[in-house]
């Protein structure tokens, strides 16, 4: 067998501006492709991405050269395999279960959503992305994690800086300088709050991890909270903005979603259509093959769930937003051992609380100029503005 073909035309700028036409072409012509600009072998078919994610014995999450390490000042669970990953994940996932979200936290989230939605002005153009999607995601997450003392601006800034650092494959020193500064701020806050979260257990992630019978080391507690900050703000923010855009540009579907109260289906379709986390990396631990091509030990493959979610073999008309598909087995939350630990939280907060509330309070919300919405991102993707008129 041969190595996958090498592409030297595709640029990161193209992928960031609009990767979907490229992915559609790759699915048809070259679903296993070494893309020089990424330094990775891109996998764009659903069967391939799923197979890789579900085979951690062969495709490791550990990347010895990941910029995540300096960005988080830690070797985080995202880049661990097997038992090491499992122990760390289990420590935090207890705070993220549907039960916890429903019974302990549900009313609080309702109240926060109510508060943030209520302060939006009626009858004028509002950038929903910056005025609601980001701040509300930040506030809810701060409570889930047990750091409500951090304000919305801090949470959003930390999240962005951590993400930028984790994606700093060009090793630009200024990005690590920014993540260092953010880590200092976070470490200081976590240190200040430790005693209180220990003394007054409240079901938040920090408190649960501190008060566990067999707690993980403090450094891992910190890095788990940081991973959740990096992975728990931009994603629900982008999901919410994407779904609102999808519904406002498809009024017939919005009417049907209202009639059926199918907000959960709208949520699933939004994250299928534009997955907030578009790609993941895995390193081959042995020589192997994928889709008829050799993958060498040590090579890094990139599973493109953004593309898998539009794969023609699974979806009819996958390029378009359509809430009422028969089946929607999307990979937006990933597969395998690293399946998103925040999936339940996202589904319940965005899908069951925020979306219905927003459309209930502003039944005539409109998007006067869909063309004005700018979409951006290769690793993480969503609209970066959403100018709506609230009525």
């Amino acid at each position, binding site marked *: 067998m041969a190595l996958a073909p090498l592409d030297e035309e595709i640029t990161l700028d193209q992928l960031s501006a609009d990767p979907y036409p490229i992915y559609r072409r790759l699915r048809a012509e070259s679903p296993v492709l070494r893309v020089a600009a990424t330094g990775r072998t891109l996998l764009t078919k659903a069967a391939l991405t799923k197979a890789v994610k579900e085979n951690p014995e062969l495709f490791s999450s550990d990347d010895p050269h990941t910029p995540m390490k300096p960005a988080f000042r830690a070797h985080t669970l995202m880049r661990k395999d097997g038992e090491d990953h499992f122990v760390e994940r289990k420590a935090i996932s207890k705070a993220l279960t549907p039960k916890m979200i429903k019974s302990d936290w549900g009313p609080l989230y309702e109240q926060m959503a109510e508060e943030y939605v209520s302060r939006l002005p009626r009858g004028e153009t509002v950038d929903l992305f910056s005025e609601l999607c980001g701040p509300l995601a930040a506030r809810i997450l701060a409570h889930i994690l047990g750091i409500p003392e951090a304000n919305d601006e801090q949470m959003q800034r930390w999240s962005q800086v951590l993400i930028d650092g984790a994606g700093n494959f060009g090793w630009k020193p200024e990005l690590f300088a920014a993540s260092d500064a953010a880590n200092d701020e976070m470490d200081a806050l976590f240190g200040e709050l430790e005693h209180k979260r220990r003394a007054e257990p409240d079901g938040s992630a920090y408190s649960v991890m501190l008060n566990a019978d067999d707690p993980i080391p403090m450094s891992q507690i910190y890095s788990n909270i940081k991973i959740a900050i990096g992975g728990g703000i931009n994603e629900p923010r982008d999901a919410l903005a994407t779904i609102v855009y999808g519904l406002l540009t498809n009024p017939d579907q919005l009417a049907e979603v209202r009639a059926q109260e199918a907000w959960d289906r709208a949520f699933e379709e939004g994250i299928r259509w534009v997955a907030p986390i578009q790609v993941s990396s895995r390193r081959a631990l042995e020589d192997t093959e994928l889709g008829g091509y050799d993958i060498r030990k040590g090579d890094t493959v990139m599973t493109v769930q953004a593309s898998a979610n539009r794969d023609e073999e699974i979806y009819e008309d996958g390029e378009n937003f359509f809430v009422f598909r028969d089946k929607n087995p999307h990979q937006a*939350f990933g597969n395998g051992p690293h399946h998103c630990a925040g999936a339940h939280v996202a589904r319940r907060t965005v899908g069951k609380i925020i979306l219905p509330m927003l459309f209930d309070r502003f039944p005539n919300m409109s998007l006067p100029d869909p063309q004005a919405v700018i979409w951006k991102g290769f690793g993480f993707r969503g609209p970066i503005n959403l100018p709506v008129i609230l009525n």
Partner: protein
Amino acid sequence: MIKVTYVAQDGSATTIEAEEGTSVMQAAVSNDLDGIVGECGGSMMCATCHCYVDEAWEERTGARSADEEEMLEGAAAEVTGRSRLSCQIRLDPSLDGLVVHLPEEQL
């Protein structure tokens, strides 16, 4: 081939034939059965393949592991003594005819 019957909340039953060695979750997902999601693909990380083993089959399907017990805490629907993660039940000839009941919700 081993037969598994999945009983939905409304009482409707679907019987699927699966190969020995596959899990109850895989058998459902590969046959597009509604009611079992199995989003993480069987890594015991998502609790979206929750099922209730029929009383008659409880002993033969065996006990839950500690990790499974812990993951079940994350199930969306009510967890009972007969709750299992269907990705953790491997089919063998002794389970031919197994009956499991599906929960109200998985997500």
